């Protein structure tokens, strides 16, 4: 199967940017802002449909950062200081864990625009992976980050259950912290085993397709252990991962190829992406297992909306050409 989808938060279209600015200056009220959010979400959903995406997200326009819904709504967590979002000129609020974390109500379902999502295309939800949450949080309560990671995995389990019940067919767990490694410290086998077990806790019993999407770092650092992670697909940021290293392994899982660069506005040459994808597929796949998703390497909100929209089309076109050229249907 060859498909395509988005892997994170979408940029806010211009009219929504202006509305949020006006809202901050108290020039529009909650109701008006909500209407503009709704309209922008419809626009983003439509753009994904136009690009022939296999799974569609609602754009996550209300997510101030990947962790924020949990930072704001989990019992036991306080909203902390602004901190840099990996190596980007964007910032997130640190979750400060001050007591036992507890999910007292649905967290992300509350901000999904269900009525904006299409009836005839499958839905995808994106959540922070246990390791990334634990790594980015300020842990003032649990003995160590591993304990926090497992507690958060339990929270995710309940959250995933709600989302799948409400109709989501694909759950992506975003795990940038697992591969972001500017100081090139080796990632221990014990860490990777704990990550695997935490994913198991979060995902066990989930009937839908799942993915661990990594970005901002070299995926090959977590190989071969990642091949045993209990997810259907593994997501790779190809702008941070050395191609050659990847080719040393055979994948028995699906791969989400982060071929579209969400951190640069340059619109990719489709021919080049098709060729790179074909080369990687040929090298890393056992022939009978060809589940491939063409996707942006990370959240698209590093781009202005117009450029992100162009890049959605690139992802869609590359997937379409791969299907035709590799003679793969579905």
């Amino acid at each position, binding site marked *: 199967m060859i498909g395509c989808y988005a892997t994170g938060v979408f940029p806010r279209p*211009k009219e929504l940017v202006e509305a949020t600015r006006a809202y901050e200056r108290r020039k529009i009220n909650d109701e008006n802002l909500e209407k503009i959010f709704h309209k922008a979400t419809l626009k983003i959903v439509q753009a994904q449909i136009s690009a022939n995406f296999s799974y569609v997200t609602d754009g996550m326009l209300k997510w101030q950062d990947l962790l924020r819904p949990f930072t704001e709504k989990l019992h036991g967590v306080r909203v902390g200081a602004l901190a840099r979002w990996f190596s980007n000129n964007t910032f997130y609020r640190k979750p400060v864990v001050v007591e036992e974390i507890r999910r007292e109500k649905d967290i992300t379902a509350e901000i999904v625009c269900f009525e904006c999502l299409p009836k005839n295309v499958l839905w995808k939800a994106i959540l922070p992976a246990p390791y990334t949450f634990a790594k980015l949080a300020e842990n003032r309560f649990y003995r160590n980050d591993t304990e926090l990671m497992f507690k958060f995995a339990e929270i995710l389990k309940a959250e995933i259950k709600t989302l799948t019940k409400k109709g989501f067919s694909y759950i992506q767990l975003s795990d940038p912290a697992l591969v972001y490694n500017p100081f090139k410290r080796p990632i221990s086998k014990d860490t990777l085993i704990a990550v695997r077990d935490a994913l198991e806790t979060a995902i066990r019993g989930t009937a839908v397709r799942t993915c661990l999407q990594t970005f901002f770092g070299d995926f090959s650092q977590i190989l071969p252990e990642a091949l045993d992670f209990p997810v259907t697909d593994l997501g790779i940021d190809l702008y941070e991962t050395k191609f050659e290293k990847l080719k040393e392994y055979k994948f028995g899982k699906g791969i989400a190829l982060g071929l579209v660069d969400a951190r640069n506005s340059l619109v990719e040459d489709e021919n080049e992406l098709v060729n790179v994808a074909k080369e990687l597929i040929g090298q890393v796949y056992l022939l009978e297992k060809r589940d491939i998703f063409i996707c942006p390497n990370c959240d698209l*909100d590093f*781009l202005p909306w117009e450029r992100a929209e162009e890049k959605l089309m690139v992802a869609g076109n590359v997937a379409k050409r791969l299907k035709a050229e590799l003679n793969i249907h579905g």
Partner: protein
Amino acid sequence: MDELFPTQEIGSLAKPAWRIKGYKNEPLSEEEIAEAERWGRKLGIEKITELIKILKNREKTTAEKKELLEWSARYAIRFFEKAGLDVVFDGEQWRSEMYEHIIRNIEGFKFLGSVKSFNYRYFNKAACISKPKYIKPIYVEEFIFTKNNTEREVKVPFTGPYTIVDWTFNEYYEKKLCDKIKDFKQRKAAARREFLFDLIHEIVKPEIGRLIGAGAKWIQIDEPAATTNPSEEEMQLFVEAFNETVKGFNCTFSLHNCYSDYEVLAKYASQLRNCSQLALEFANRDSRQTGIGENRTGYRELKLFEDYGFCGKYGLGVIDVHTDFVEPPELVRDRILHAVNLVGDPSRIYVSTDCGLRTRTWEVSFAKLKNMVAGAELARKTFR
């Protein structure tokens, strides 16, 4: 500077409503015009009636708009002088913003729109679409105006090349290397390097040369993005960029960096050549209690710069620019004296704000700067 603890601001000061609206030809309220009169009197500005006449004019000519920039620069210079600073500039009143100003004055860039910084805050991000080309002086006119309107020492804030590259989409160079480097990661790194050094040679160095030609003696390179990517390769690139920027000029250079990872910067600071001063943000990290010693939590990293062998001066951030809290002179004094204890030599301390004061009102900024100057004087007394 003969006296200990010279005082300075980092660069920006809020633009008054009359400057912003006046420049855009938007109507000004009576209160906004009265504000111009009030501050004018407070700062002892002459011929305010000429400014008021321009402000009341509904359809301002291009020449009048230019005059407005000069008026607001004049106000800002006098503002810093009146607060008692030893080193001044014009509060960057001629600039829209540190990034946009330089990008709008060079060729090879195109603004693509707003991208999220955090929450409902965005910044206007540009793409480099062709080789950067110098078309006209960027800061020279502003510098000459400042120099002609003050007797104090002038420091020119200059947005650094590493930050410009970090905050810009690199379309041109990545496209250029498309056929040459197949691996995306390697291509990105090579394209970033080429962009950075082209920018330094085509834009930054020519502008520095012109500033020096116009009489600039001290240029502060602003590099807020310095530690955004803390990897060894990137930090070495940053150091190389700074050293290449200042190479061959007979001028004093300093580096300003704030809200960054100082554990990382400290490791590389001693490799910066011809960097007479590091202007760093500390007050934001510090407690508000007076005293010297353990309660000066915000200044821990200063020691790291010393341990790693930086031997230049420090622009010691003693004023937090993100709060309206007005630091008492005694707190400023203690922050300075604590830093002296860590550094060992009082002559290496310049007293500074953490960053530019552009997010504070003029009332708050003025009170903060007055207290900063008073605090520096209290610190001096302990050495007399």
